[in-house]
């Protein structure tokens, strides 16, 4: 971490990644996400950029599979950032309830292996 130039560094990267994610139909970022990037006056939900890589937390839109969602996220992030992308599917947007879910602190979760 060096000086925080507003046009580079984690803040700008988080915004660019968020914009890329928002173009995906298969996932949604949501405000209840456990990770986010705090910028002056706002928070970029669901995206955190750190030295070790990028963390993305999103809800998958039913009936997207987890694998499709993760691939879509990585494909969307790739042009914007080169780091490793850890994807957490922390919610699912079902067809019977338009509200985006997301409840408080995340419970347990397990990793998926890549096939």
């Amino acid at each position, binding site marked *: 971490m060096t000086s925080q130039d507003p046009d580079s560094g984690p803040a700008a990267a988080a915004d660019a990644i968020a914009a890329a994610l928002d173009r995906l139909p298969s996932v949604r970022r949501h405000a209840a996400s456990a990770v986010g990037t705090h910028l002056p006056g706002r928070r970029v939900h669901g995206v955190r950029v750190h030295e070790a*890589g*990028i963390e993305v937390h999103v809800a*998958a839109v*039913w*009936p997207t*599979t*987890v*694998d499709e969602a*993760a*691939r879509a996220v*990585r*494909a969307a*992030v*790739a042009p914007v*950032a*080169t*780091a*490793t*992308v*850890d*994807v*957490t*599917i*922390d*919610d*699912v947007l*079902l*067809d*019977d309830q338009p509200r985006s*879910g997301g*409840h408080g602190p*995340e*419970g*347990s*979760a*397990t*990793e*998926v*292996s*890549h*096939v």
Partner: protein
Amino acid sequence: MAEDADSTLRLPSGATAAQPSPSRSSSPTAVATGSTAHTEASVGASTDGHVLGRGRTVIADRVLERLAVRIALDVPGVVRHASGPPLSGLGDDLPAASAEAAGERLRLRLRVAVRWEEPAHEVAAAVRSTVRDRLGAITGKRVDRVDVAVGALLPSSRITEDRGRRVR
């Protein structure tokens, strides 16, 4: 996938009564004894074209649970049912699921409400196989076990059709 997976079906003793889960009957602990060693290829598989900055993929357990509920509702005979005063947070919302995941493997308990006159055991068996297959396909995890309990049998008069909510 055979229809065997050791699973149990429980009916509440008092027909419609929503039973306060005397679950954990048998001994569900001995995980899939004779299960085929189905080693899901681990990270780094160079087989798929894009090796875009790999990284981990994690699924929250509540996602598994919500998916299981959603899949169960697609099984004919399974209906939604909320017992208890509206908005009170009391009573049960069926279907209800709880997932226990360990690595690539997954165990599920589901409680469902079934339309009266549907053969409950057949509906439960259908829930079991449907959830196992579809949840496995959606999450890429291996569903070792699905316990299905019928938490309520409902006559049509008590079923509130959620019309228009299921977009197919």
